[in-house]
């Protein structure tokens, strides 16, 4: 059912941590299945230099958060804006059809944290 990549990320999720005093923090949730994902980012010179992800959710959600965190590190925020669900899905080796909500959750959390970061910078 799950690809080996998903299982690997689920068993050993990357960057599971809170970042005290992070540049931005945001959370997203899926009201249908109750999954929640919280992303912490430190941004330096417009680049994600540190990322933490905490997830409570199904294995696909955990894996999506984990693989997203790997993608983000060292990525300019301007490029992260372009990350869509199918990018995350591809990075996971494909999710089962009824698990697309997991990549939705990760991308929602990403958008939220970018929004948070950008609104903080506004005057």
């Amino acid at each position, binding site marked *: 059912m*799950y690809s080996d990549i998903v*299982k690997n990320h*689920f*068993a050993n*999720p990357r960057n*599971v941590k809170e970042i005290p005093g992070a540049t931005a923090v945001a*959370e997203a949730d899926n009201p*249908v*299945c*109750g*999954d*929640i*994902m*919280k992303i912490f980012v430190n941004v330096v010179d417009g680049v994600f230099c540190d990322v933490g992800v*905490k*997830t*409570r*959710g*199904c*294995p696909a*959600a*955990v894996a999506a958060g984990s693989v997203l965190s790997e993608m983000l590190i060292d990525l300019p925020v301007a490029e992260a804006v372009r990350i869509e669900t199918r990018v995350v899905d591809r990075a996971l080796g494909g999710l089962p059809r*009824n698990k697309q*909500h997991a990549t939705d959750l990760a991308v929602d959390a990403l958008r939220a944290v970018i929004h948070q970061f950008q609104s903080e910078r506004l005057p």
Partner: protein
Amino acid sequence: MDPIIYLDHAATTPVDPAVRKAMDPWFAQDFGNPTTLYAHGVRADEAVEGARQTIAHAIGAQRPQEVYFTAGGTESINWALKGIALERVRGHILTSAIEHSAVRETCLWLAERGFELTILPVAHDGVVDPAEVRRALRSDTILVTLMHANNEIGTIEPIEEVGSVLTDSEAAFHVDAVQTVAHLPIDVQQLRCDLLSASGHKLYGPKGTGFLYARSGIRLGPLLHGGGQERELRSGTHNVPGIIGLAKALEVSTRLLETETQQLTALSRRLIDGILERIPGATLNGSTERRLPSNVHFTFENTQGEALVLGLDLAGICVSTGSACSTVSLEPSHVLKAIGLSDEQALASVRFTLGRSTTEEQIDAVLEVLPEEVNRLRAMSPRAL
């Protein structure tokens, strides 16, 4: 076979070795169609009738002819409910909020087609109140359908008491006994039911087999029309090896029932106590007294059920979440919601169902791995316990 620890016996069971052996000659040797006239077919017919007697005897039916062979629990249930309802054209149907989807979806389908449906609530432990049944009963109630024990939380329902409530009613009383035949003593006279459904693969018999008990005299239409097998009520060539296997499985289980009940009670007690001792924020769902000896069902706060299932799977332990009969749906189980769990709690729940091969060592292994996995998930969660 992998050295897995299989704790999902409510989903399905392995076929017992004696059952395999009993099925063996009927695949390619004595493969005849039991409705044919020649000796080769007559042999199959006699074996099928022998199986019918075994089953009738095991469930206390008055006559073997009250037992009809089907292809599984779902077919038995669909047949019982539609066979009663469609034969009567209109009327009121009474069921509970925690039925298996085979009952639930069939009732909803009948409701779409003009039958009136009452879905009774259950208490926090999942028990249906016979007094509620009495109150809900109407003069035009044609069918009452309840499960003998719940497949998720293992609650055993007061079927006998409901049966008594119904003695003066015209309503047919169907019992979904898929989780109890071969696991609890079954006597259809004592249960006072008119119809009873069972499934082979839940009792160490073959998948794709089941039976429906239907009391003689009950007005029941067929679900499968055709060649007129099973006394014109269930057409289709008999699955001879399957039928032989089903009867053998019930025979074996009946013999083992007492010992197995003792063993399972002790093992599930060990698992429950171990979990409560080692894992904070763990709540046992269902009833403490009225419970299948094999069932252990917990909510682990601030975790997610499917993640626990996969986490345990990676450690070689098979358990399940939700209704265990369908992974299609994302929604929290209607059973857990009916006993008052929040969506969040329902989705943080796991079912362990023990079986014939479960050992103390396996339970202890689970008690090692499970707390670690719960802790791991909780450490990943953005919420505190």
